[in-house]
């Protein structure tokens, strides 16, 4: 075989190998998406099929965050979870701490400096919150003797009622 013939044969082989590799990559990627995804515990956003709760734990404390049907959640860590309203217009990031000072934690999270915190109650715990000047975000905490669940909510004021009901369902236990 001539030099040109051998070069041509090598070129065809390389091409075939590259094509096979590309197909395998796509196939594996697809398989990973549809088969492996359900096996992953973290960093996967999914919608609740029915009313449920998401548990978060930290340093001996645990909390449950209610998740109504069709709401989205993504557990970003053992002690943190982010939830979204079904339309995606409201996003709330929750984080649990067994040792945090609720006031200090919310003050640090508050969108504006020097803002005075509102103090209220949920059915089972205390509630602190502060709204940003633009009204589009709220930082706060639901807390009792067992722990502090801080939250940062992003969404316009028309989601306040939805946020309030979400916070009302947060339960903190030992």
């Amino acid at each position, binding site marked *: 075989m001539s030099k040109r013939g051998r070069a041509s044969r090598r070129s065809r082989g390389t091409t075939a190998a590259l094509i096979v590799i*590309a197909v395998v990559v796509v196939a594996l990627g*697809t398989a990973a*998406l549809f088969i492996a995804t359900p096996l992953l515990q973290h960093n996967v956003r999914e919608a609740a099929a029915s009313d449920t709760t998401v548990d978060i734990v930290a340093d001996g404390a645990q909390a449950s965050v209610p998740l109504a049907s069709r709401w989205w959640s993504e557990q970003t860590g053992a002690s943190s979870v982010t939830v979204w309203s079904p339309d995606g217009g409201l996003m709330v990031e929750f984080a649990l701490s067994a040792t945090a000072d609720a006031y200090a934690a919310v003050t640090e999270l508050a969108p504006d400096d020097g803002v005075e915190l509102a103090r209220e109650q949920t059915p089972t715990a205390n509630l602190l919150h502060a709204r940003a000047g633009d009204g589009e975000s709220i930082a706060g905490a639901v807390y009792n003797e067992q722990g502090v669940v801080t939250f940062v909510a992003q969404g316009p004021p028309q989601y306040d009622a*939805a946020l309030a009901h979400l916070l009302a369902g947060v339960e903190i236990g030992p």
Partner: protein
Amino acid sequence: MSARERMVRRLASSLGAIAVVGAAVACAPEYDTSWAPPAWPATGSIVDAAPPQPAGFAGVELVGQRIHNDDTGISARWGYLPGAAAVNSALDDVVRAAIEWQVGHSGVPYAPTPGAVGSELGDRGCRPSEVTAEASSLLPNENSTRTVVACEVVLASGAVFAERLRIVTGSGGGVLADTSTIVYGDLDSDTAGTAAALFAEPAASWTTLVEALRRDAGSLSVVPPAAPTPEQGAVIERAFASAVVSDGQIVVPLPEGFSVPELEHLPAWTPPTPEQPRWIAFAVNDVALSPLGEAVLAANGPFASPTSAGPGENHVACEIVPCVAMTLDDGPSTLTPGFLDVLGAHHAAATFYMLGIQAEMYPETVGRVSAEGHQIGNHTWDHPYLTELSDAQIRRQLEITEELLRALSGQPIDTMRPPGGKISSHVVRVADMPAIMWDIDTRDWADPDPAELVEMTVGDPVAGSIILMHDVQYVTAGAFDQIVAGLVDRGFALVTIDQMFGGTPPVGIVNHGRE
């Protein structure tokens, strides 16, 4: 690298990119854009500008009332709607509250007191200009605190009536308070009350109010507001009493300094102050209305004004206005119609103690006295001194007279006046009805000087006086118009014996209306 190899590399890169993008697209959440966030339950909205008061309404005839008491420091004008018992009683409540307010400021107890002769207190009822005038212009220029009440009709439609009372308190130094209360009435059901009575469940209205306020202040709590304490209920009742109903809304003023635990820790909440008053407006569909409230909001069409059966049937509150009972003995006579004309012209009532023999001669006059709303009492058949009669004779005198007067007038005859004033406890027991005497004896039967008769009859009575005159005396007939006009000018309400005692004269011998 050959062109083919470059093409393959590009193809592999493209496939890889497609795989990555496809994975990203496949992992992106499918948000439901048809989902809408829940809204807060319907509540009111906060209003920082005073709502316009309803405009005055002309063309309704009221029975004008007026008091002017310099000791306590209160002047008030209001008007009763003839025959509307519930409305008039509710108006009394508002006036009493204003009096109590002023008593609290002045420290001087209130008693209905007539003015001096020439006080011009016959000018009674509403002056609509006073409800829109500058508050300070209503107050006298003196250092002591005074309260002034002004009135106007603001609604008269179908069977619904509403009268606004404006209460201004202050002194020459300034206005302390300027509030309005509207009394609403449904004549079909004879129910009435302030704006607070338009709501079905005060406790539910409290919850709605607190909810509206805390949502306005950015609350994120869904814990229901606590039920109002009795003190809070009283505060909100007073606030609702001053509510304004118009254009499908009920606008309630928030009391100065109002706050509740649900609001105290919300930085965005600021209690109302005199410099920054606040109101809360409810859509009428968002509050539970009482039957009165529904009637008020549904009112339409011409006003079905109730008619009065006469001044003796009108509502009067003798614990608020100074009352005097004019009593006329020994008739009916040919002069009695003239007395009735005078009383009618001044919208005044009287009690006629009639003799049976006179009633027998003038039965039509007996009928007219009753038809024009005056009271008829028993003065015996032919004027004997009852203390000189036997028990049987006493009973005979009274019974045959009562039977005739009742038949001619259609009204119960349940008080008596002994001829000559001759009475004893024994006679009262036999008569078995109150013996109405007097404290002002005009002695008009003694042929007095007419001017002196007028001066004494107008100048001597006090609140609660019972005046004795005779509708058979020509001097009295000639002076009667001056007398009645003079009493009205002093601020008296001329009432029947029944009106003086709220429908139930005391038993025994009665000399004065304050017994």
